[in-house]
Every structure is written in structure tokens, then in C-alpha cells.
């Protein structure tokens, strides 16, 4: 069930109530059962996939912990997880390749593969499984039991679309011996309501405009202004859609006293491309950094050219992680190039113009350039084809035309959402300050708890119900 389903919200009340009513010993098993039921409610035929991965990596890690010299178990685990990931995630590409390969004998073995679906969240829990194997290999994990592995990989708040948690930040919390904390509970509710509004009011409203603007037939008729706005609208849509999911996942976990890692930190306020990746899909970027980029780069001992090549290569893989589409790879390569450009600039600046380190103008220029570059990269990511992406990008940079082709509401709504996006960190600051001062004053705290917050929740729920579009899935469900 997606988090913005009415049934999910109703069931969540029940799940959380029962959780806190249960004795501590049973809670782990209860959550495993809930997580399996949650996954099965969606795709019962694939529930064996995360369970199989859990069992596979558990057996490998158990052997590995018994003797860390047994690299075979580590390799076996990695190959097992990657094979399942590649098979399920890229089977359509494999099918197409097989069909091409056997075309000369007029056989189409790929057709059989096309019928295979994609288990929800496989990209996410596979990465968790790999990080678990690597951490065990690097002796960061001392002991392991199957129920921990099972809950770690299938924990229902983050199984479908992350955040990608690490073993050491999630599993120690599975002792469930923490007492109920009202503040954590309220903070969980905050995140859930915020996520509901972000999804239904913001992301889904942009969806219809973006969908129309990216229709292949109309692309060539879009003006420069249309395409910039479409890039901006999609950038905002994907951010609010994914941030909404992450907020609801984090909020759900908080209701049962579990802290999941953060996934977003106002990414469009990034000061440079490197900063963007420390704010956007943070759990994926740190995974890539720690488990891919650092080990690869360590082999080259920081040499410049291999460093740049590995940056681009790693980012291309990040693109490929989203799916077997050229648009995703181009998106990744573009981000790799941005990172290389920024690193190149930093090297040059520190050597020749060290005084520019604190230059406000240079900082602003990088911030603006980063935002523009990120918008540009979203175009191939969202475009239906390479041809469409090229057409749109060409119109964005050459042959300027500033007429508007769509309803004026599209441009205004996009600007309104962009304005909210700009104001977001400042609003968060104000709310945090208010919460702090409310804690110190008992009357203010009561007013906050029983009046201000419920009013905000009710307002958020009103907007959530009013703008409910059952049919619009979370974008990251496809990855």
C-alpha cells in the first residue's frame, strides 16, 4: 500500500497501537510479520525475493563472521544479490538483447522474460544487502541473526523506496527497549502530514502539466520558456514526490521509535554540484560514495584523471540504478561532468585564486549554475526518448522563443511551488525555533500540542483529502 492510501493511514493507527501495547520481546516478530504483510499486500508473488535475499546474505555473513578470510562467501553473497537485482531490474533489456541475438533463427526467447515483473523496492533493499555484506567483510558487524537481517531488509517504512539505511544505524534500534517518547511520536506525525501534503497537493498537481508537456508529439512545438518551465516543474515534482515518500517513511518509523536516516536536505539550495549530492537522495549518494567511489578511487591513489573518470563512471552507474534507460545514464553522466567541473574549478581556484574561496559572487554564480545544471539534467531523465531530450535542450539554449504554449496556470503554479521550495528551509527554521520555545513554556507547549499542531494537521489532511488522486503512484516506485 502506498503511504498516501487511506487504507494505509487507517491500518497504520492499528499497527502502531498494537506495537506499543505488545511486550518488548514480541515486537520484533510483530514487525517482521507486519513488514511481510505490507510487502505481500502489494505484490504477493514477489514476497519471496526480499526473503530470499535476506536468507542468502544471512548465510553468507554467518560464514564470513566465522572466518573473515573466507572471501568466497562474501563474493558469493555479492554475486547472488547482484544477479537477482540485474535479472529483475533489467530483464526487459536482457529480453531485448536475447531477441536480437536469436533473431537470425527467428526465435524470440526474450518474450518469456518480458512477462516477468519487477519486485517493488528491489533496487533499495539490494543496496542495503550489499552494504550489509561489505560491512561484515570489513568487520563492522560482530554478530548476526536471521530475524535482524529479515527486518533490516524488509522493514516496511523503507522497503519500497528507501531511505537506504545501514545495518549499524538501523539494527541496534531493533532491541525495542526504548520507552515511548511523545516528542518523537509528534515529530513522526509532523513528517507524515507534511509528506501527505507534499505528495497530493504539490507533486501530483504538477504531474498533469509535466505529463502533457513531455508528450512526444508536442515537444517540437514547445518554446524556450515552455521547456525551461517544464524542466523546473519536473525538478519540483520529483523532489516533492520523493521527499514526500521519504518524509512519510521516516515519520512512520518514528511512530514506533525508530529513526531512519534523512534523505533530503533542501537540495535545490545546493551551493555547488558536490553540495547537491549531499542534499539529494542522501542515503543513495553516501552509499555510492562509501561503497563504490572511495574503493575505486583508492585504487588510483587520488590521481586526477582516473579520479575524474571514476566520478563520471560512478555517476553513470547511479543513473543506471534508476533503470535501463539511456536518459537515466545521460542524467548520471551529466552529474558526473558537473562534479568534475566543480572539482577542476576548486583545484584551479585554490592554486591560482585562493582569495575567491570566500567570494560571495563566485559562490552565488556556482549556486545559480548548479541549479540550472540540475534542471538541464532532469530533461533527459524525464524525456520519453533521446530525440525528445535533444529537441527540448536545443530549444532551451538555442533559437529562443518566449511565448507560452500552455495554460497560464501551469507557469503560475510552477512559480508558486518554486517560491515554496525557496522558502522551505526558512519555514523549517521558524518552526524549529517555535518548537524549542514551546518546550520551555508549559502553557505554550499545551497550546502547541492540542491547538496549533492539530490545526495544522487538520489543514494538511484537508488538503490531502481534497487533492487525492489515487491513480498517481510515487515516481520512485519504478526504481
Amino acid at each position: 500500500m502506498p503511504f498516501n492510501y487511506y487504507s494505509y493511514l487507517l491500518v497504520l493507527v492499528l499497527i502502531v497501537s498494537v506495537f506499543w501495547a505488545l511486550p518488548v520481546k514480541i515486537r520484533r516478530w510483530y514487525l517482521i510479520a507486519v513488514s511481510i504483510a505490507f510487502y505481500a499486500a502489494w505484490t504477493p508473488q514477489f514476497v519471496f525475493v526480499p526473503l530470499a535475499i535476506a536468507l542468502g546474505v544471512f548465510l553468507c555473513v554467518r560464514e564470513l563472521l566465522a572466518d573473515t578470510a573466507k572471501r568466497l562467501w562474501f563474493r558469493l553473497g555479492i554475486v547472488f544479490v547482484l544477479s537477482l537485482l540485474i535479472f529483475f531490474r533489467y530483464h526487459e533489456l536482457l529480453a531485448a538483447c536475447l531477441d536480437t541475438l536469436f533473431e537470425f533463427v527467428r526465435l524470440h526467447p526474450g518474450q518469456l522474460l518480458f512477462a516477468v515483473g519487477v519486485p517493488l523496492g528491489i533496487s533499495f533493499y539490494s543496496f542495503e544487502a550489499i552494504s550489509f555484506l561489505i560491512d561484515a567483510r570489513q568487520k563492522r558487524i560482530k554478530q548476526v541473526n536471521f530475524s535482524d537481517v529479515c527486518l533490516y531488509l524488509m522493514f516496511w517504512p523503507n522497503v519500497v523506496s528507501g531511505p537506504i539505511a545501514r545495518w549499524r544505524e538501523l539494527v541496534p534500534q531493533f532491541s525495542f527497549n526504548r520507552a515511548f517518547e511523545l516528542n518523537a511520536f509528534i515529530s513522526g506525525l509532523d513528517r507524515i502530514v507534511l509528506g501527505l501534503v507534499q505528495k497530493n497537493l504539490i507533486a501530483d498537481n504538477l504531474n498533469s502539466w509535466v505529463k502533457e508537456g513531455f508528450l512526444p508529439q508536442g515537444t517540437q512545438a514547445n518554446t524556450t520558456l515552455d521547456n525551461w518551465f517544464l524542466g523546473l516543474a519536473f525538478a519540483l515534482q520529483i523532489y516533492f514526490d520523493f521527499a514526500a515518500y521519504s518524509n512519510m517513511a521516516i515519520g512512520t518509523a518514528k511512530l514506533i521509535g525508530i529513526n531512519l536516516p534523512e534523505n533530503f536536505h533542501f537540495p535545490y539550495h545546493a551551493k555547488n554540484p558536490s553540495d547537491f549530492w549531499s542534499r539529494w537522495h542522501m542515503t543513495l549518494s553516501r552509499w555510492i560514495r562509501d561503497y563504490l567511489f572511495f574503493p575505486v578511487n583508492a585504487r588510483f591513489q587520488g590521481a586526477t584523471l582516473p579520479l575524474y573518470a571514476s566520478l563520471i563512471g560512478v555517476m553513470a552507474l547511479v543513473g543506471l540504478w534508476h533503470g535501463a534507460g539511456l536518459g537515466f545514464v545521460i542524467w548520471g553522466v551529466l552529474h558526473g561532468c558537473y562534479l568534475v567541473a566543480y572539482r577542476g574549478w576548486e583545484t584551479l581556484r585554490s592554486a591560482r585564486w585562493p582569495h575567491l574561496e570566500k567570494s560571495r559572487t563566485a559562490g552565488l554564480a556556482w549556486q545559480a549554475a548548479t541549479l540550472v545544471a540540475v534542471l538541464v539534467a532532469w530533461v533527459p531523465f524525464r524525456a520519453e526518448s533521446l530525440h525528445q531530450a535533444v529537441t527540448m535542450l536545443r530549444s532551451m539554449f538555442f533559437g529562443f522563443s518566449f511565448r507560452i504554449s500552455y495554460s497560464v496556470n501551469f507557469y503560475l503554479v510552477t512559480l508558486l511551488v518554486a517560491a515554496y521550495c525557496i522558502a522551505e528551509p526558512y519555514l523549517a527554521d521558524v518552526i524549529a525555533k517555535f518548537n524549542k520555545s514551546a518546550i520551555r513554556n508549559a502553557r505554550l507547549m499545551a497550546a502547541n500540542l492540542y491547538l496549533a499542531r492539530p490545526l495544522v494537521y487538520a489543514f494538511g489532511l484537508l488538503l490531502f483529502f481534497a487533492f487525492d488522486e489515487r491513480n498517481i503512484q510515487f515516481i520512485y516506485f519504478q526504481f
Partner: protein
Amino acid sequence: MKKLGPVLGVHLSTAVFLVLLIAFDPFSKISDLLDFLFGAPPKWTQVQDMYRNPETQEISHGDDPVPALQSLAQYWSRHPEAKRVLFIGNSQMYSITLAPGEDPPTGPEKTYVDLVADEVMRAPERLLVYRFSAGGMSYPEALWFIQYVCLNPSLRPDYVFLQMNYQFFWTGGIRSGMLSMLEEPQFREQIETRITSGEFYAGGFKEALKAYQDMKARQVSAPSGSHGGSGSAAASPANFGYRLETSARLLLDSVPGFARRAAIRDSFTKLLYHARLYFLRITPSTARSITGARLLSSRASIEAIARLCNGQHVKLVLFNAPVNPNVSLYRTSADRNTYHQFLTGITEQFNIPLYDFEDTVPSEYWGSLLNGPDPLHMGRKGHQILAGRILDTLRTVTATSVTAKGS
């Protein structure tokens, strides 16, 4: 257990506030306040009590046309001797904004199509008039509708009067209410053929077909991920979660007041619209250009309508809708030329008559929309004037047609 009190308190307060907000509808109250502060005309000038007749109007305004068309087919079948005239257009056909000096309504008001329908019913040569109009209708929607009625002999019109309007070109897509027309397998097939045509409207049709398929999948509790592609796990059948959600929705819909969420959405959208008008001064009459995908899609749709009507021996008549002389919808004179050249071009290309009523209704017969002149919706007298002009046209067109057939 000590913490249970605050948790229950928060939930209870939230529930109480939610009920109050649903009952109070704050967005509509803020809209009303803005209207008051900015001196909007009284609400009664936007006539609410409109004449309704399912034999001459598609009364759902595109929200659910299939049942309306089923009863139309029965009605028209009872009058096989009569010629059928179908009017297609936007909200101008079903709305009245009273002009200054016009009295408040005392009963159901009739628009020009209703007045024309009344007149032709009295005429000796039987003509049956039917109106299909929807707010912000797009030309792909007009094509969609005409394609549907041409399929069924008991719905096929003899004449189609298609409203031309500059604003019409700003809209696109197929509204969800019209998706149920795809239930008809033959119609669905024709839409699929149009999708493969590669015409500019094909993308919108494809999206509509996909939305319909999603809707069907939902009805059998087998969801389809909108982004999931063919192999999406979310598209799996026998999905318990989806069935549970359906039950939850049915349950919540039975809660009094919950069904008001659609009205709340409308009032929120209206509030944004009023804010746009009052604070940004971007009104429906703010001049703008037509360009891009929607223009191409509209053009392609009108051309397809012309071809379809030719092929089905349906006489297509284009009429350029009246526009309030107090406003200029065209941003530049080039926009006006482009629009008029397109109209002329299409009439020449397909040999279709075009009647230009753009300047038919004088400025004093137009009302105000919030803080500015209403560009599209006329007052009572405006509708009467236009009805007269349309009647003249109808007589000319039908007589010409009869003569042509007789010869």
C-alpha cells in the same frame, strides 16, 4: 500509559479541527472576502439557475456524457424524420453573466442554444438541436466526442456546429469524465487507430487511453503503476492492498461530510484563481498568444473533425464565437492574424462554411467577472442576439443542404 492522554488528545483535536474545516470551508470564505474587498459584482450576476433539458443538452458538461448520450439516442430514434443538429462548444454555451442593468434571474435562464432549440422545435421542417458543451473544452475533446457520435447511427448528427474561439486553443487533453466513452469497443478501436496516426492530438489520446486502462484496472482491483511500465510490480493482479483501499474509500465515502472533499478542492482552486485575478491581475481576458503543442494539437483535431465529418456525410459548420468588445484576447495583431488565417485556411481546405460572430454582441451586453470584463460569457440580451444570428445561419445552412441533396 501516561503518554496515551496527549496522543489521544492530539488525534482528537485534529479530528475536531478537520470536521470544523470541512464544515466551514475556509477557502470559500477567503474567496468571498477577497471578492468583497475587491468589489466583485454580486454573485447573482453569475447565473446559477440554468435551464436544463436532457433532450437538448448534455447536462453533465462532459463529466459523464455516456448516460446522456444513451437517452439522446432513444429520443432521436423516436423522431427519425427530423434532422439532427449538434452544437459543440465551451462554457459560453451554458453560462450567463448578467450585464449591468439586467435584472436578477427569476427562473431558469436559457442560453442561445436553448433559445435556438425552442425556435426550431416550432418550425415546420423538424430539426432537433442538441448541445454538448464543457468548461474549457479542448478541440481534441470535440474530436473525441464527434468520433463517438458518428459511430452510432442513432446518434449521428446531420449538422455539427463547432464553436471556434481563440481561448479554445489554449486548452488540451481529454477530461476524465469522457473516458467512459471508451467502454464502446468500436470507439476504443478508432481511438487506438488515431493514436497510431502520429498526429499532434495522438499523445493526448494515448494518455487518455492509459488513464482509462488504469481506471478499468482499478475497478477490478488490479492496479497499474503510472510510472511502472509493463513489468511494474504495482501492476500485479490479486493485489490485496488495492482491494483494501477500495473498501476504505467506500467506508470513508459513507461518512457524512467526507464527500465534500471535491467541493473543498474546487473552493481551494477557486481561491487561487481569485488571488491570480486580484493580486497578479492575470485575468481570462489578459491578452496572450497561442503557440506550441496545444495550438498544433487543436489544429490537427479540427482538421481531423473536418475529414471525419466529410467521410460520414455530416455537414460541419464553424462559427467564430462572440467576444466581449471591451477586451482583446490577442496579445499582438499577429496573433489575431494567425487565428483568422487559420480559420480561413481550414474553411478553404475542407470547403466548410464559417460564420464569424466575433463582433456580434455589443459591449453593453457583457457582464463582469470578478474584477474585470468577462471575455466569454454574455448577458441575457447577448444570448438573445446571438440566438437570432444562429437561427438565420441555421436556416441558411439547412436550406442549402436540402437543396444540395435534392439536386
